[in-house]
């Protein structure tokens, strides 16, 4: 079966809420064509806005997407969604499973309230990456989020668990109030990084942040080679590698249980 493919017929002037994509998986291709969504102040059918081909709704592809498309992959539960092009706000928010891959950039609030699945953005994203969703006081609750480019300000707030990887830089006020989880950032860190955190593991390359911590004894950490291999397997890509690392723990001024691995790539 060929994957269900959506390609815009028109250049969108208004923002488009594509949160209904996650329910396409339980529908036949005929039903999908007649499914309606709001475009501006008009209710339109999917087939009016998109050229639809293929029947395998567990494997959805969106071609030629642009930043007017919001909520792509919102509430995604299973299967895979691949998007070629940029996407708008709230991409992959409140995902609970499945795999969403974006070959482009995303706007704000990527993966807010995510609690499972794999979200991969092969570009950069805006502010509030893995932030709190509207009705929750927690950010990412579980899952794996990979950003190959940079992330904006206020990224990764109130993280509970899961793994977030940012291959580029993160903006100011990132990683605030983290409760637990694993954050990997291989670029530069913005100002006011990791404020008011409780626990969590940070794997970073920027050694400036480590000055607030006490250097841990030199010993072997079985966890690190395992994490690298496991993440590379999960993401089916060589997403993380390092030559050596130093571990820091015990924040000098604030009482928290976080730990820091400064890696050398």
């Amino acid at each position, binding site marked *: 079966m060929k994957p269900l493919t959506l390609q815009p017929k028109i250049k969108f002037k208004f923002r488009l809420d594509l949160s209904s994509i996650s329910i396409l998986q339980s529908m036949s291709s005929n039903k999908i064509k007649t499914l309606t969504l709001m475009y501006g102040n008009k209710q339109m059918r999917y087939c009016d806005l998109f050229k639809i081909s293929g029947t395998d709704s567990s494997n959805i592809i969106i071609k030629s997407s642009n930043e007017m498309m919001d909520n792509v992959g919102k509430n995604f539960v299973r299967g895979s969604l691949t998007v070629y092009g940029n996407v708008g706000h709230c991409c992959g928010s409140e995902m609970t499973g499945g795999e969403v891959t974006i070959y482009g950039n995303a706007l704000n609030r990527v993966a807010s309230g995510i609690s499972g699945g794999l979200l991969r953005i092969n570009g950069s994203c805006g502010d509030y990456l893995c932030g709190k969703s509207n009705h929750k006081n927690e950010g990412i609750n579980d899952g794996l989020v990979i950003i190959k480019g940079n992330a904006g300000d206020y990224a990764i707030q109130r993280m509970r668990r899961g793994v977030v990887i940012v291959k580029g830089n993160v903006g100011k006020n990132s990683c605030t109030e983290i409760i*637990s989880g694993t954050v990997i950032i291989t670029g530069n860190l913005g100002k006011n990084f990791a404020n008011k955190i409780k626990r969590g593991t940070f794997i970073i390359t920027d050694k400036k942040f480590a000055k607030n911590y006490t250097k841990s004894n030199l010993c072997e950490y079985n966890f690190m080679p395992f994490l690298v291999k496991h993440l590379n397997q999960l993401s089916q890509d060589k997403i993380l590698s390092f030559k050596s690392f130093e571990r820091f723990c015990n924040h000098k001024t604030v009482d928290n249980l976080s730990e820091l691995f400064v890696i050398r790539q």
Partner: protein
Amino acid sequence: MKSKIKIDNTFAEAFNMKASRILVTADNLKWAKHAAISLTGFATSVIACGVEAGIECKLSKKTSPDGRDGYSILLFSMSRSALEKQLETRVGQCILTCPTTAVFSGIEGDDMIPLGKNLRYFGDGHQISKKIGQKRFWRIPVMDGEFLCEESTGRIPAIGGGNIIILAHDRISCLKACETAIESIENQPNVITPFPGGVVRSGSKVGSKYKSLIASTNDEFCPTLRDIVKSKLSKKVGCVMEIVINGLTRDDIEIAMRTAIKAIAKANISAKIDTISAGNYGGKLGQHKFYLKKIIK
């Protein structure tokens, strides 16, 4: 089969069991082996050991979860609770204590049993939980750094007690035949031979003249008792040994039994092997019957 070895028209009787697989890794194969041998020690028969365990195969750096050398171990038990208890005790005393090791689940199942779930309390509050993908791992601080273990492992239904009995003219050729058979199935996935070196010389029957014993020597196959009891041995037979095979599925056991029998038939000492038979309890106790003649077809 072209060999002159006689195959008895009988069957091996096997039982439903519960099984689990764990993967033990260490800095090098030497320490992974120490841990694996320690964990699978005193795990030959559920009659008194609680669990039957054995090394399934070696893990290379590519196939192990953390890129280090290791071993895959299978454990079989009659009940979930016994498996759970034995696994926890053995991992706690044999893997946690062994330098440089880490332990992971090697099988997915609908039912999960604790692996490091309770061991984590050894960390006395300093243990760190990590959830990656769908799995949770525990990092327990120990004197050589940290012990990494997965929280739980899968429990699946399995079969234990598949067997072949080798009737030979003398002890040397019987042992050699057993060694050949064990070597032939050494790398077969999903099966273990839980007895020392894979071979049993004290096959048992159910019951005893002594009321307190649930099993006693299999007198039908004891060469020294041939003229005293109703024996299954001919005058030529001077030594009998048994290979017990536990497997995850019926097919796995059948393949292992077939491979073992064929390996014995091809071996140099096949002329000194009289018969290949199998152990059963009349078909009344076990849920699975492996007919030798059907298996070697």
